[in-house]
């Protein structure tokens, strides 16, 4: 990795800064290492020597989670709900974002303003009315209802994100396509979408993380036997205080996917999350 070091910093000041940052990084990374180690031992082994290494390594905890706590099913359900919700959301947000960024849509300012202002709505305000509305529609307890809520609560930010990224595309390329006679959908599919693929990918990852990590709506809309992974983990953590290795295994399973995503695409994710802060 190419490193550019600040020229203004005295050479002798560099090692202490490096050591300070390393120590801090250790406080972030070590808990995860400890979790993985704890998840790979039995409870008796853990209680005998909680701070040391296991006398015997085992996958038993993961098997128990899979068989007795339905964590495997919860994992698959979460994956399915998150993928479907993100797909619908990003397609709608991309279309809306492109139109609002690039066309003088009648009432466009109003629509954009609406998206921006509803971003402020905290989930807590929505839980009572959403629950009542979905129960009237017969959607409480169904994955369809949860997907609908995820799409709706994700759309304001997603659309805003896409508006910003389509606005930043070079104007002349899109204009050239239009002058050549390409209509709305032609320009969108063949010019704008390929050019915006990086930001769309960023949005997909951010929104997927959001769905994977969601707790409140899943908790109130799904019954225990159909529950998703994060709420299931919360329940296991609350109930099994005395079995640290099992809870650790649950944490490892839940953290695995987001961490994998971060390792694979840290640049996209960090840039995208920076935008959330800068809105």
């Amino acid at each position, binding site marked *: 990795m190419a*490193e550019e070091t600040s020229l203004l910093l005295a050479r002798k000041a560099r090692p202490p800064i490096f050591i300070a940052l390393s120590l801090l990084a250790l406080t972030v990374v070590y808990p*995860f290492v400890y979790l993985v180690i704890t998840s790979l031992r039995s409870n008796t082994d853990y209680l005998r020597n909680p701070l040391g290494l296991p006398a015997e390594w085992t996958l038993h905890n993961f098997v128990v989670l899979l068989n007795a706590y339905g964590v495997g099913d919860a994992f698959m359900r979460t994956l399915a709900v998150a993928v479907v919700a993100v797909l619908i959301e990003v397609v709608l947000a991309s279309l809306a974002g492109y139109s609002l960024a690039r066309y003088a849509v009648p009432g466009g300012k109003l629509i954009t303003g609406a998206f921006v202002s509803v971003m402020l709505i905290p989930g*807590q305000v929505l839980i009572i009315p959403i629950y009542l509305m979905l129960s009237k529609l017969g959607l409480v307890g169904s994955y369809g209802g949860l997907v609908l809520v995820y799409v709706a609560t994700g759309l304001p930010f997603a659309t805003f994100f896409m508006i910003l990224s389509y606005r930043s595309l070079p104007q002349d390329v899109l204009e050239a396509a239009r002058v050549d006679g390409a209509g709305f959908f032609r320009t969108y599919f063949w010019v704008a979408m390929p050019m915006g693929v990086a930001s769309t990918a960023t949005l997909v990852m951010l929104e997927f993380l959001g769905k994977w990590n969601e707790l409140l709506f899943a908790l109130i809309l799904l019954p225990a036997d159909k529950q998703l992974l994060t709420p299931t983990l919360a329940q296991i953590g609350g109930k099994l205080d005395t079995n640290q290795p099992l809870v650790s295994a649950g944490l490892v399973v839940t953290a695995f996917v987001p961490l994998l995503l971060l390792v694979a695409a840290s640049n996209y994710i960090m840039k995208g999350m920076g935008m959330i802060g800068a809105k």
Partner: protein
Amino acid sequence: MADPVVRVSGWRRRERRLALLAALPAFLIVAAFMVYPVGFAIYISFTQTNGLRYKWVGLKNYLDILNDPIVRAVFVNNLVFLISVPLLIFVALLVSVLMFEKVRGWKAFRVLFFIPNVLSVALIGTMFRSAFGYYGVVNSAIAATGGQRVSFFTEGSLAIFVIILALVWSGFGYQSLLLLSGLSAIDQQIFEAAALDGAGWWRRLWSITLPNIRMMLGFVFIINVLYTFSSLFGFIYVMTAGGPGYATTTIDYLVFLKAFQPGNLGPGAALAVLLFLFIGILTLVQNRVFRLGKES
């Protein structure tokens, strides 16, 4: 022969209509499942209801909420959780200033510090609950050094301490990234000129770096205040369930508790609306301050 100008503008109008059509599905879903529910919540907050029958009670729910000693105690809890804000900013500032020196491996540090941000609050909360549990790593270490195991979650102030620790641990990476972007926007030449004039590292930090990112610091301050009022639910739910008693209950957790109390949804809705107003006002203040700062 048709006038080409008219044809082009007719084509444009058609394009604009298509664009509106493309934006409509997103808009309608948001209108139906975000905007309408807020109106519905406001309506519910003026009624006594079980979700089937609604009886108009005017401001009664709001008055009850404002006179409720539990709500007041819980609001004080939120204020206590604000202790996390200066702590968080201090650590984030420290980290960003150190990373700004771009020592070896600073990009890797950036990613490592960011890890907690891709994980759910519920997961981090569970991690801390387990680490500070009776058989957790912290108590194991205490026991190993000959101390007495501490029951962190049965005493309010200790539980609050653990939650604040979790907040700082999980939040500093993202905040330091924001501050780092503020630092990177400072003109490097100012630093070089100051260095030529003999200003040392501390002097430059105090007279150049900090004043130049004060807007960013203000922004980070406000988003963290907003966060403590609207987003502690996940932590509280998995770590303490609001207990002992109401010692760690926050406003957003109380909304959840009240929302599904059997019999009457009105008070929960009223509390949620009050929370929303409070957050809205804070955000307006933030936008005001932020915009004014940009102009000056």
